[in-house]
């Protein structure tokens, strides 16, 4: 090892030439704790002049390395003198944060909700039967059931995804007016139901409520 007073900035702070700014900061803090005036460990080991010299050296090392520009320049002199390998310095292997674009890309690769909704929308807009039902003035439970079956989705699946009790869903599809909840809730349930099937929620709610309203109230 080089004698202490001849060490380069990295050796002085006991870090590798590839150290990150965070490591540099931590190393400086630890070294300062050890060499500062009040340190119990280095007490009496150094004369006041030696201590001053060491602290000044640490500060110089820290300030040089923590600034990317002065660090790059310092690294160049080290590389020129052969003290450090060219690949070693930190900025050659800088890790950038992962960009948001990358996150989106990985999501698209997965079979997820996004894929499902697009497929459903496609089926809904191209299925003749569904379009026919949707264009009716009012809708019955049986109509909703037909749409659902056309899309190949089970009641259990809807119950699971929307957290609506399956008995409630059966009541809606079976026009079982006696089991209906208050109107506000019924509208909410219809909305979730329609959204899950990717059909127009306003058409469903309006068409269904129009008929229910007459008998339910």
């Amino acid at each position, binding site marked *: *090892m080089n*004698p*202490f007073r001849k060490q380069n900035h990295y050796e002085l702070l006991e870090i590798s030439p590839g150290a990150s700014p965070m490591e540099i900061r931590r190393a400086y803090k630890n070294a300062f704790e*050890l060499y500062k005036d009040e340190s*119990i*460990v*280095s*007490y*009496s*080991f150094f004369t006041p002049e030696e201590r001053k010299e060491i602290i000044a050296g640490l500060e110089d090392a820290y300030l040089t390395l923590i600034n990317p520009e002065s660090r790059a320049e310092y690294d160049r002199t080290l590389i020129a003198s052969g003290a450090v390998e060219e690949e070693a310095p930190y900025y050659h292997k800088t890790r950038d944060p992962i960009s948001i674009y990358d996150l989106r890309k990985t999501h698209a690769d997965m079979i997820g909700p996004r894929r499902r909704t697009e497929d459903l929308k496609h089926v809904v807009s191209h299925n003749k039967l569904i379009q026919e039902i949707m264009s009716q003035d009012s809708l019955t439970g049986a109509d909703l059931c037909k749409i659902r079956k056309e899309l190949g989705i089970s009641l259990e699946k809807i119950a699971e995804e929307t957290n609506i009790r399956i008995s409630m869903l059966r009541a809606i599809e079976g026009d079982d007016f006696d089991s209906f909840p208050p109107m506000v809730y019924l509208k909410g349930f219809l909305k979730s139901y329609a959204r899950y099937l990717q059909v127009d929620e306003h058409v469903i709610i309006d068409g269904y409520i129009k008929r229910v309203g007459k008998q339910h109230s």
Partner: protein
Amino acid sequence: MAHIWPIGGGKGGTGKSFLTGNLGILLAKNGYRTLLVDIDFGTANLHTVLGIPHPETSISDFINKKVGTLEETVVTTAIPNLYFISSALNSLDITNIVHEQKMRLLRSITKLPYEYILLDLGAGTSFNTIDFFMISNSGILVTTAEPTSIENIYRLIRSVYIRRIRQELKVHNFRVLAEEAKTRDSRATEQNPEILLYIIKEIDPERGRVVEQSLRGFEFKLVLNQLRKQDDPNIGALICKIIERHLGLKIHFIGNISFDDHVHSSICKKMPFLHIYPYTQTASDIRRCYENMVSLKETQLCIHGVAE
């Protein structure tokens, strides 16, 4: 050949005798034939820590040539495998043993037929203490977490350092080189042995290398004793770091031993601590230190400078 562990540390009251006694007990219990020698001629305590208030013979019998061999001053203890050479009955002028007597004693110690020989050294950094500390390369230093004790550790280490430089460069060479070093760099005095050596290496690379090689042979051990709850437990490791970094000497941190008032009561009762308080934190700290020390690879016993 015996493993010789000199236990020193500059300041008095840091627990050298306490550690020597209890390490000896652990070595003996683990089946090693162990000898404890009280080298603290003037202010001997080890017999009290071991619970032998009135040993029959003492090391002064050998120094004053009352007996022919050092072996004859050994007393047995209540613990199987544990033997002891006391300084309790030393005559009052023994503190100032002359060089020749010291050399005879050093030579005799290295020849004793034991597996482990522990030397309990006195406080201070006199040549006597230093020479016994340097009887082997693996001296044990005991310090507390107080600046008074730590500064004495550094003082002792530097004394050992400069003593080894002097031994390696014969008297004449040393004077010539030291004078020249001083003219090159005013800081290169005996107070700063590391700078002195650095300049000597520049002046005379060959001799410098020999000295450096010899200094590298040391493998000290450091024990941090009486660690209070409010103390920083890393102090010991940092002391070792600063010594290795600035003096280039190898030193292993062995461990912390917690402060415990029971130590005081065991000494007042004149009974070995490990025997009456085996289930305290301090006792388990001592056992852990013992294991760390035994597992460290022993360097070859070195009786450097003793033979001349």
